[in-house]
């Protein structure tokens, strides 16, 4: 073993990805173009993207092709193992078709996860950009709010909020976003602190541009890399949180299904060996979360190209 290896440029899962070759005479490529190339060169990113698209198609287009009854229970058909009575994945404890339920449940998981991530990202970005740009006591107060909420472990805060405000799907999105906007707020604030001293921001200010213009037209677009990468990870986290809340019985309210409460229904039957109630929703959660994590990693590499070229 050699203890003195060549310097690793970055410590990262995707070190294997080849950097785009910069040939001298070819016309210079745009940063977006370069970023796209790095993204596409990353095999894990492609896998992530394909998995996400497959799941979206499965959950939202699947029910159009595969019709199942997901509102009325059918106790005569309960606990059927896969393959019996026209149920490829069997049925659950009240007779819902598992495959159909996986589609319907996936709709809630994906919808809530993505909506909460988008909401958290928008709120967090604005909060962080405003705090970082204005600085001074406004920044101090705004960031103490973030520190305070970050000090309360998320799941406890969310369960408390869900217990206070009985959740509908819409409210669940707001509650999850409320627990999640803190990270983007911190990241964007950090970025803003350096961006606000740049010449173009100063120039815009000198030409009489107001604070709002600086934040919306100059700061936020230039922090887009950080924002998009974090948003991708936010989706993964939000999907896990929805599943956790539903698993604990305080998430998506019945008769709606999601992967978390499907799992929670299955727990009653661990001893009976009814694996079809646990493995499919569990696998779905893990696959989607891993896929979004791959996407986030690849996007980070792609946006780093822009930084390298600067």
């Amino acid at each position: 073993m050699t203890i003195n290896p060549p310097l690793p440029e970055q410590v990262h899962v995707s070190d294997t990805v080849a950097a785009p070759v910069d040939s001298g005479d070819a016309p210079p490529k745009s940063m977006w173009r370069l970023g796209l190339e790095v993204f596409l060169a990353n095999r894990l990113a492609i896998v992530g993207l394909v998995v996400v698209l497959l799941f979206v198609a499965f959950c939202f287009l699947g029910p159009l092709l595969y019709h199942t009854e997901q509102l009325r229970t059918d106790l005569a058909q309960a606990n059927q193992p896969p393959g019996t009575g026209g149920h490829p994945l069997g049925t659950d404890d009240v007779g819902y078709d598992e495959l159909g339920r996986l589609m319907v449940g996936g709709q809630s998981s994906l919808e809530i996860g993505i909506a909460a991530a988008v909401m958290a990202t928008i709120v967090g970005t604005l909060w962080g950009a405003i705090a970082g740009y204005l600085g001074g006591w406004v920044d101090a107060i705004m960031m103490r709010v973030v520190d305070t909420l970050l000090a309360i472990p998320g799941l406890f805060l969310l369960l408390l909020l869900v217990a206070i405000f009985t959740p509908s799907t819409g409210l669940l999105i707001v509650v999850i976003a409320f627990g999640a906007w803190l990270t983007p707020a911190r990241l964007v604030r950090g970025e803003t602190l350096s961006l606000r001293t740049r010449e173009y921001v100063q120039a815009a200010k000198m030409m009489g541009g107001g604070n709002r213009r600086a934040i919306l037209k100059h700061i936020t677009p230039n922090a887009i890399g950080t924002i998009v990468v974090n948003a991708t990870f936010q989706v993964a986290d939000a999907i896990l949180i929805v599943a956790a809340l539903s698993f604990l019985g305080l998430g998506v309210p019945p008769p709606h299904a999601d992967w978390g409460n499907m799992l929670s229904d299955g727990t009653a039957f661990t001893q009976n060996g009814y694996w079809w109630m646990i493995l499919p929703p569990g696998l779905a959660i893990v696959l989607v979360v891993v896929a979004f994590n791959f996407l986030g990693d690849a996007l980070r590499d792609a946006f780093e190209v822009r930084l390298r070229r600067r």
Partner: protein
Amino acid sequence: MAAYLVRRVLQSILVILLVSLVTFTLLHLLPGGPARAILGPRATSQQLQQFIVQNHYDKPLILQFGLWFNDLLHGNLGYSYHLNENVASLIADRLPKTIVLMLLSIVVALLIAIPLGVYQARKRNTVGDYVLTGFSFLFYAMPSFLLGLLLIILFSFVLPWFSPEAPQSDSLGAILADGNALVLPVATLALITIAAFSRYTRSSVMENLTQDYVRTAAANGAKDSRIVVKHVLRNALIPVVTLLGLSLPALFAGALIVESVFNYPGMGFLFWQEAIVRDYPVLLGVTLVVAIATVVGSLLADIAYAVLDPRVKYA
């Protein structure tokens, strides 16, 4: 450094004050007001009135916060009408059990994660490294409740080795004595922690392997294993202290779920049970205690870091 510590302590006190303000605010956001929410739908208006006067809910908000905070300083976190017990004594009973679960898991996780991280850093970009990286991604994405369920199915039912339920005893000693029942809950919490810790150790060791002191030691003829253990690990593990502090919220959340899956009689399990029946005094009390524990924990981690790494200058 003294100035840094003082500033850091003051900051933590401020955050704790603000957290208690948040909790106090939530108390007043309870549906139907605190009296109705705590006494339940069947309380008569006379009982409500009595409760309001007794608990000073008729006073100005500022005064209420003062009284509430004074109670807090005296360890009075309210009363659970659902369990008919003092919230503070409920927490005093359950918190040590949660801390034991967390400590056991952290120790197990570190014992496994650090050698793994070192191995991965030394054999970087080999098949072994990729396989382990794949596993850490998998466990990182695996929700703890799913992992717990899978472990129960595999190691309690398919292979009847361990108890599917955590120790149910009331005393801490009896819980620790029931090693067989502790295996699965501790393993679940440890496995999700190992993923993050080993990745962190891997990058930290890799960074340190490129330092000049490693080359110097190698040039002096020190063996590779000695360099790693005596020189690299000492430096590489300093940031892990910070990681421990940062992962406290995640550990508390993980403990809540693991306790719920395995019926472990800790604070997370209590919180979950009372969340379902909307026992607000318990929920607010536990939230406050967990937040304070988190703030104090990360403060301790920061202090430890400052002590361990004298190179860092705190302006």
